[in-house]
């Protein structure tokens, strides 16, 4: 972003001002995540930087809260983590299957009422979670699925499918349909064509939609708060109660683990996006 040498002074000033604003905004976006990191190694029980930490005294840092997170007595995190993963995995599988099928139908040019159906399928993403939570709670209570894993998985499938629908339709928009016709003309049946031709080509889109669905389920707290009993507690629910009641640094240890997880997911999502663009022949 070097400026040409003929730039007038006022534009030069403006340019540096603009760079300063951008730096501030990037800092504003990313810095809060890094506060958690050092504080989770705090040797003391408070959520502030102790004097020792400011002096970088090694005694002020410890793995105490990570130890507490894993081995602590009456510790909810183990059960919560197990539940979170089970629920998120099943919700992701359900979202991928339903969402991919729907996206295939929506991408067909023969699909009737495309706009309206798309708007309905995306709506769980747009409708405020509190309203979705109330509605889903009424339904689950009526069919007797409140406070069960099945109920929460179904709820998260509702919330996760819009992401799969969006990413897979986006992938299919650049899809060359002549390859499936070629397969059909060579005698392949539709299922075989899908498994051998279509699926490998749209797989990056499917997986990245699946990642979104996974994160949505893994991070979702509003609906779970309505649906979950004590048995179904998840990591976000535990964090929610923790943040409301006893603020303990254990939460920061958990949060650090979650940030590492989201970094992993971000990297996989980026790699997938690039692979998808390469496969679809989009050069950037």
């Amino acid at each position: 972003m070097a400026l040409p040498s003929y730039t007038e002074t006022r534009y030069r000033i403006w340019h540096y001002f603009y760079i300063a604003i951008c730096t501030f905004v990037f800092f504003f976006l990313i810095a809060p995540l890094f506060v958690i990191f050092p504080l989770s190694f705090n040797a003391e029980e408070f959520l502030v930087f102790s004097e020792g930490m400011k002096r970088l005294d090694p005694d002020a840092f410890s793995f105490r809260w990570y130890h507490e997170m894993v081995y602590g007595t009456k510790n909810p995190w183990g059960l919560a983590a197990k539940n979170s993963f089970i629920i998120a995995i099943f919700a992701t599988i359900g979202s991928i299957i339903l969402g991919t099928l729907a996206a295939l139908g929506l991408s067909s040019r023969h699909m009737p009422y495309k706009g309206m159906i798309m708007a309905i399928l995306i709506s769980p993403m747009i409708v405020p979670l509190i309203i979705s939570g109330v509605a889903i709670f009424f339904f689950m209570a009526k069919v007797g699925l409140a406070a069960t894993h099945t109920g929460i998985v179904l709820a998260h499938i509702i919330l996760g499918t819009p992401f799969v629908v969006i990413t897979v339709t986006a992938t299919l928009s650049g899809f060359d349909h002549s390859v499936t016709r070629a397969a059909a003309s060579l005698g392949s049946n539709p299922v075989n064509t899908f498994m051998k031709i279509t699926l490998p080509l749209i797989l990056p889109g499917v997986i990245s939609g699946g990642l979104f669905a996974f994160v949505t389920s893994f991070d979702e707290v509003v609906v779970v708060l309505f649906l979950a009993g004590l048995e179904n507690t998840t990591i976000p629910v535990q964090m929610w109660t923790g943040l409301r009641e006893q603020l303990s640094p254990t939460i920061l240890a958990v949060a650090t683990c979650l940030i590492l997880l989201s970094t992993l997911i971000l990297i996989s999502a980026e790699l997938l996006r690039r692979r998808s663009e390469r496969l679809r022949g989009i050069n950037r």
Partner: protein
Amino acid sequence: MSSETKQILTTDGIPLEVSLKKAEKKNKIKAFLLVAPLLFFLFITYVFPIGEMFTRSVDDKMITNMLPKTFKAMEKWDGKELPPEEVFAGFYLDYKVLIENQTQGKLGQRLNKEKNGFNSITKKLMRQIKRNKIDESQSIKEQIMKVHKRWRNVEYWQAIKRTAPPYTMAKYLKGMDMYYAADGSIAQVDEDRRIHRILWLRTLEIALFVTIFCFLMGYPIAHLLATLPMKYSNLLMICVLLPFWTSLLVRTASWMILLQQQGVVNDFFVMIGLVADDNRPEMMYNKVGTYVAMTQILLPFMVLPLYSVMKTISPSLMRAGKSLGGTPFVAFWKVYFPLTIPGIGAGCLLVFILAIGYYITPALVGGASGTLISNQIAYHMKTTLDWSFASAMGLMLLSGVLVIYWIYNKLVGVDNIKLG
């Protein structure tokens, strides 16, 4: 002649037109069958339950079912003077059934909401009936009127009559701080008790300002990301995408740590001498906390659509504008900015929609003055258990959101939502 030559047949001997139409229809059904499982699933578990919220919000059948004979007799009563003997007799018979079923308490509570003072007089009547003090061979009207002087007051009977319809809009009126007055007209709640209107306005205000802040902060960095060379912008993009993928609760927790009184932000303010150490400002549990945290959390939803639009604008357009004599500011304002309007629309609508229904962040950092309408809905769902009121408020919020969603769909198209 023309019909004979133009009639093209397929190899099966069917006219081509018919055959094509058949194929077209088959394709339509095929496409629809693929969408059907998800659509069916969503209708059962999501769309219908939202509809059910509506019936729940207007439902007022409880009293209608409790006092069938009373309301039957009241049909002939004009509601101006004390009701005739039949109404009193009907009420007495209905109430006796309720006492036998031990559900008379609910009636008292529900009527008390309609008009203060019902709870005590229904209890008094119950005691008289239980002691068999009411002689059914004599005028029941006279005997009930003797139980308490309020039973002689026509206003109480008018209140009962108002609860007769099985449906009511009362919950919606309550959500807007209004109620049905004694004569059935709609009245405003006293000024110092208008809590819901404050909440609606605050929700709108916070959503609007968060959208503006997100726009002001998102536009410059989206521009920078779109104009920098790939290798730098990819790196900076992480700053946008990492928060986007990080758990909402983690981000809220980090703001709670930053904004607390002994927190990093206050430490920094003290260090640069902006505030005195013993006079640290309260930045959490108020609107400031809600604004700051929500802006940071929703900023990626502004940057991503802006970025994807700016990416498509050729840099040569700005150069052309400048070479034609525009200053950089004029070139930006007349050439670049108008081209980014679709992105601005998409980003602002998306952020506004998400902000207006926010729940978790305001509940944790908002305190009393930073809570939004969603928090009120949760409060009625969990604490007061007034589910019909929660449903009514939810649907009022939903109707607002759906209007914006409709505009978004018209302007941007739901299939153009950008995710990462």
